[in-house]
């Protein structure tokens, strides 16, 4: 419990750093950001200008401390005001439509990639030097491919040439409206196969390489040899002796690498025109939509922090050494 609490305190500090950076970055920039936004979107109401100035710290807003407290309040209620580009709707409304798409696609495919990659890594490590292990350079090549490039190639080959999958978008807007209907869900799944395949293939290789290395190191340990000498069936030796211990660094790596995986997936959404927050973030960058950029950055950061915390909890459950350290303290 103490371990969890300490980690919780750490994540709170990390979240605070991200929030504070988010507060100071637009304020440190030269030029009047709000004027630029207002010039770009002439139909904005004066009230929107007020909200923007408050968020980005332009004009006469009182002391920095006052602004900061106000901003913290906004962050806690996750209220980033109206969105200047899609004026009448607020940043929240737009994001709440897009988060489910990214969460479903990126979340699921990351987990699938982790499971498959770790499984293949266990096999490759267990039979180090074997056929699967000899294919590692090919996997390194797969790992080197940028997500979005693999996405481009998939679209070119599987969607444009052979027309097996739809080219992009989350669903066919002409035929379906989002909702819990079979037609829509089937259509959305059909559209998500290519993006999911992209994420799974490219991020799987990394998990596999890492797991293979840890597995090879673990197999050399005396307790694994002892387990074999006792005559335990391989299944037990592999999964409860070797892989279980080799999993621990892998899990820690999962927490740290998830940020990279999510980031890569965001750029990929652009290629597929997938209606998630990655596409929204890049559109926001193109349109100088600062409130949207800030909100999405915070959202992603919080998501990664929560994922890390979940990994920590799993680690406490899986690794007796973490619990033992608490007792020793």
């Amino acid at each position, binding site marked *: 419990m103490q371990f969890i609490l300490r980690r919780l305190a750490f994540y709170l500090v990390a979240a605070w750093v991200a929030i504070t950076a988010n507060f100071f970055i637009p304020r440190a920039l030269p030029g009047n950001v709000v004027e630029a936004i207002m010039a770009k979107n002439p139909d904005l109401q004066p009230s929107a200008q007020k909200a923007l100035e408050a968020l980005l710290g332009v004009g006469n807003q009182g002391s920095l401390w006052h602004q900061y407290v106000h901003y913290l309040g906004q962050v806690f209620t996750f209220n980033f005001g109206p969105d200047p580009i899609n004026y009448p709707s607020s940043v929240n409304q737009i994001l709440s439509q897009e988060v489910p798409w990214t969460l479903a696609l990126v979340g699921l495919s990351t987990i699938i990639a982790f499971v498959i990659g770790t499984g293949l890594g266990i096999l490759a490590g267990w039979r*180090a030097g074997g056929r699967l292990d000899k294919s590692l*350079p090919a996997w390194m090549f797969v790992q*080197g491919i940028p997500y979005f*490039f693999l996405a481009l190639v998939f679209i070119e080959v599987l969607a444009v040439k052979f027309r097996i999958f739809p080219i992009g978008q989350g669903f066919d807007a002409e035929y379906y409206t989002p909702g819990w209907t079979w037609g829509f869900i089937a259509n959305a799944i059909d559209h998500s196969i290519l993006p999911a395949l992209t994420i799974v293939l490219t991020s799987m290789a990394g998990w596999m390489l890492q797991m293979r290395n840890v597995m090879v190191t673990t197999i050399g340990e005396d307790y694994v040899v002892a387990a074999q*000498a006792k005559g335990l*069936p391989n299944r037990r030796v592999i999964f409860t002796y070797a892989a279980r211990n080799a999993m621990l660094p892998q899990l820690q790596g999962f927490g740290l690498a998830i940020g990279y995986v999510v980031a890569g997936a965001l750029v990929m959404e*652009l290629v597929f025109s997938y209606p998630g927050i990655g596409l929204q973030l890049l559109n926001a960058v193109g349109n100088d939509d600062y409130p949207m950029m800030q909100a999405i950055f915070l959202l992603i*950061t919080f998501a990664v922090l929560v994922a890390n915390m979940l990994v920590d909890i799993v680690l406490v459950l899986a690794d007796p050494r973490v619990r033992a350290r608490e007792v020793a303290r």
Partner: protein
Amino acid sequence: MTMLSTTSAAELPGAPAGAQPGGQPGKLSGLAATWRRLPATAKAGAVLLLVFILAAIIGPQVAPYAPGLQTPLANHPPSGAHLLGTTATGQDVLSQLLTGIRLSLELAFWVGVIATALSVIVGVTSAFLGGIWDEVLSLLTNVFLVIPALPLLILLLGLLPGKGQLPTILVLAGLGWPWGARVIRAQTLMIRNRDFIAAARETGERGWRIIVFELIPNEVSLIAASFVNTVLYAIGASVALAFVGLTDLSSFSLGTILYWAESGNALQQSYWWWFVPPGVAVALIGTALVMLNTGIDELGNPRLRDVRNATKIAGRRIWPTDPTPVLAAMNGHRGRLASFMHSFSRGSLLDEAPLDKAGELR
């Protein structure tokens, strides 16, 4: 995705650098000895990387055209005049590629240098000074480690008014140091208590001399690994950022070529010669770096190395699954896959050697 292959980098032995078997008559023969000890993957990676570095050095000189030169020959597939075809504005893709490799590698190199320097400074300071410094610097490192870098990069570069090469390098380096810092701190903590450091301290060496001449030479392999990792991260991130348009789009890097290919509808029109070469180049550079890193890992971790010269008896590979030659012989009548699957079954515990018809042991 870039940082995955470093698990065992932390386990590199703290043996003094350059203390290879067979003495060290000269720097060069030491290098040659290191090269000979390198695993095959690392050699392949190094050679592949060297090819790209060469292309980066001589590329812009040997490029057949100026990369920005527009000709009336638009969207032309590969031909004798344009080995890799032309873009929508009739620019030569090969020339763009050669220039782009230069720019992308240059950026990644400087990001690697700056970020690695930062991680050495932070990691060594943190471990060497200890106390409150260590607490603060470790906290800073860990915070930067969990905050996702690419969204922050997009935010920063999206807000920054100028989007040239230099701001990209600085921002990438400013966010790329924490991983290395963490690994180097762990290693420094280990080395700090060794006798030779204590001896240097006793003889009255100053702190900075101990760090520069005693400590850092012992962390060369670790620093090299974190440099390779950072370069890998920089290539990936810079190409992704350029692809979404967050860079100076008038210059030619691997990412901007992809950006123009995407916005020039190369995809919908199947102009593969426009977007495949830069993508493959990025993937190959990435592969070379991953291979190099795996090689460095193997160099430091004997268990990974031993896999290559694993036991073979009578030309038959003995897996950890089949601990004894007898067991291997017993499984001999099964195919490779079947014997592997069989080894999972409870029946494998009761294995009897297969008997022939006469009941004799085969």
